[in-house]
């Protein structure tokens, strides 16, 4: 899927056509395989959730393609704010959508029977099982997510990504991987959705908020390779920081709100809050106790 990224850093405009076609092609293939898997799944057991999960996955792939299209890359390379927007979209839009698509099962089902069997054997093996168990420990996932996102914004690595296409591809792949992984934790049907999910989302957003604050208030350009050092560099950096801080914050806030509502709905299903009415009529209780009661 990342084949198209190889065009990153391409100087001459004409050369983006090939990679664009390649990227779209790969994306289309992935979607096709996924949809085939879902079709089989629905034949086997009609489960309503797959109807909307399909849309989520397709939308996720579409968003991914849109922000990674080779013609986008030169723009991103020139503009710090655009670059940060790209990162935010990868982490906060594409990743949750893809995770909502829950593609594990459909991909598995799309495989030929023999392969499926082999995958199942590998999945069931002890070390793999333990590894997968470890991969669902929330604190670990949040920590890795935070570490990866922060690390790629250290000036050293950031500059490297700007100068080397391979590093940049790795960066995007890393974002996508940790984002997908993290959001699977929160959105997978197997996950017990509760208030903790909100904490995880807030915690995973912290590094971006912090970075946003630093970029907003820093008095000098911190990434000369991206912005240069001129007077506009500072404004550009502030805009980039603010984009990471406020709009990204709003997106994750909305996601949190949805999580809370879903959680309350789940609770309501399991143990209905019930809405009894107080005893009817104008309540006789609402009055001050009488003298007699005082004496009694």
């Amino acid at each position, binding site marked *: 899927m990342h084949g198209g990224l190889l065009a990153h850093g391409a100087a001459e405009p004409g050369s983006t056509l090939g990679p664009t076609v390649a990227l779209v092609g790969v994306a289309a293939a992935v979607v096709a395989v996924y949809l085939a898997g879902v079709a089989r799944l629905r034949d086997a057991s009609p489960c309503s959730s797959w109807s909307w999960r399909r849309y989520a996955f397709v939308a996720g792939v579409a968003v991914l393609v849109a922000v990674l299209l080779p013609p986008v890359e030169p723009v991103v390379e020139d503009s710090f704010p655009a670059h940060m927007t790209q990162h935010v979209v990868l982490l906060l839009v594409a990743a949750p959508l893809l995770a909502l698509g829950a593609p594990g099962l459909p991909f598995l089902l799309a495989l030929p029977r023999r392969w499926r069997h082999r995958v199942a054997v590998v999945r069931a093996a002890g070390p793999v099982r333990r590894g997968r168990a470890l991969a669902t420990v929330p604190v670990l996932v949040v920590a890795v997510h935070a570490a990866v996102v922060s690390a790629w914004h250290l000036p050293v690595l950031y500059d490297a990504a700007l100068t080397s296409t391979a590093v940049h591809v790795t960066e995007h792949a890393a974002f996508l991987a940790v984002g997908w992984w993290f959001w699977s934790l929160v959105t997978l049907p197997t996950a017990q959705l509760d208030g903790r999910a909100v904490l995880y989302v807030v915690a995973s957003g912290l590094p971006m908020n912090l970075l946003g604050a630093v970029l907003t208030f820093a008095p000098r350009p911190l990434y000369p390779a991206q912005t240069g050092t001129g007077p506009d560099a500072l404004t550009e950096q502030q805009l980039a920081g603010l984009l990471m801080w406020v709009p990204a914050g709003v997106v994750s806030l909305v996601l949190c709100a949805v999580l809370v509502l879903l959680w309350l709905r789940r609770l309501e299903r399991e143990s209905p809050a019930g809405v009894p009415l107080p005893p009817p009529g104008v309540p006789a209780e*609402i009055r001050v106790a009488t003298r007699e009661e005082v004496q009694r």
Partner: protein
Amino acid sequence: MTTLEERKAAEAAVGEQLEPIWEESGGLRGWFTTVDHKKIGRRYMVTAGLFFTVAGLEAVVMRTQLARAQLDVVSPDLYNQLFTLHGTTMIFFFATPMLFGFGNYLFPLMLGARDMAFPRLNAFGYWAFASAGLLMTSSLLFGAAPNGGWFAYVPLNEEQYLPGAGMDVYSLGLLLLGISTTVGGINFIVTALTMRAPGMSLNRVPVFVWALVVTSFMVVFALPPLNVANLMLFLDRRYGFHFFDPSAGGDPILWQHLFWLFGHPDVYIIVLPALGIVSAIVPTFSRRPIAAYPLIVLATIGTGVISFGVWVHHMFATGLPQLSLSFFSAASLIVTIPSGIQYFSWLMTIVLGRLVVRTPMLWILGFLVVFVAGGVTGVMFAVVPFDQQTTDSYFIVAHFHYVLFGGAVFPIVAGIYYWFGKFTGRMLSEKLGRWSFWLVFVGFNATFFPMHVVGLLGMPRRNYTYQSGLGWDGLNLVETIGAYVLTVGLALTLFNIARALRSGPAAPENPWGGDTLEWATASPPQDYNFPVVPTVHSLHPMWDEKTLATMVRDEDDPERTLTDGKQALRTSDLDGVPEHVVELPEETVVPLVTAGGLFVATLALVLGAPVVAASGGLLTVVGLVVWHWPRAARQEAQEAQEAQA
């Protein structure tokens, strides 16, 4: 139908067994050793009420000074002490402790628990709060009150510009209080997570509890920046450190960031629990379940989260990059949306229900009127150009009094009228309550509404006097008269309280037909709150036949009566499934000693005696060790014995 008589009969039998276990010693000894959340909660409220009275009188003196231009009632320096202390006391020593007092008293009752999760920590929190408040308030008597503004901007508050002990009292007093508030908040969270009655899943938790839990989470995250800033300020002032000293690499804006990183959430730390009180009272007097419960919960959580992102709007005039202002303006606008949701939830509850107006509801209606005005001006301050014009003028004084007096004091007074019967066993007079309300309502608006105008006319805040002929004179006089009316109105409620305590009619168990579990207890509640721990089946347990029935049905169930010792039921954090029985601590003097050590340390640092301070710290450490000394083995031996028997 389970009648009240049936329940009483069932409870009396169990109560007999519980009484000797839960009874605390009386008299002076009991006063210092109690760990009962009800006594501590009442104490919080009384102490905070005392600070409110003092800070209110300070405000009256200030209004007197400002009645006419160029008056000489107080000196400029005394005026500066008064406004600093007024702000600091109202924000830190009245609003939050008062609401924590409500919380302490009501939390276990609303949750159907026997006490807070950490009763000793509760006592410690009170003693730390009371001593910090004593330090702060009494400093005025020694002429050493803080005089650099409750926001304590640097470099003004560096030793160089404001020598003397005033700002040391401020920084250390707030540090001590910060410890108290933090442990209080942690106690609320843990209590709400682990001590709820069986069956009380999170969607059956009263909104008031939600509000205080969100508040507590905000405390946990918002107080550290303030505490750190105060530590830095103290070190700067007393030991020549340079955190905020621009001549040695420090930065004055750092203080503003740290302070407002706390300060903006603090607005909601004050208002959210008060809104929780509103959400508790409105359904009772609307005779209907609260409308849109999930949305109101979401709004409460949302307010808490968003409020951390908007501190910069207190700094619109400091010359931050224009670009960033536009973003923070947007963030500040967003924070009003959750309040809108809560507001319309109350309105819909009233509209769809059958409103019965009694004094508590009257105060709530007053709140609904006043709070909306504060909300509208709040939106105005998110508009950068407007903020840059009106910030630090009397307009903002008007705004935050509408938000804080309107949003916190009105609900607090409503809460006092609502729960007074539960707190004391006596009912307040309706008639006096109504008089008090109307006087306060008129006085409040007469005091603070003209401030909008005078602010727009260019009068800056924190001025001990003003020049005549600028168009401010008449309005200031109206404000001062309003302040007197307001004072009389509040004094009437105080009188009402005093009268009721002496000769008020006895309070029935559930005088208002309320919906939450505190109304299932006696007025005032027994030491053990609930003889039979209820099993909760709905959001409004007292209106719910099934829940009421469990309090009779489980009369013989040892898991609901817990008569083996001073025990409480621990339930699972999300679903309220019983998990374990926890032993609660007996009364003890350790929290007092531990807090006392901290107080000695604080006082000694203010007075410049580090050795004494160190010994105070040592006392605290010793107290902590004694407090946490593992007693498990003793318990286990006991259990083994019991098992054999």
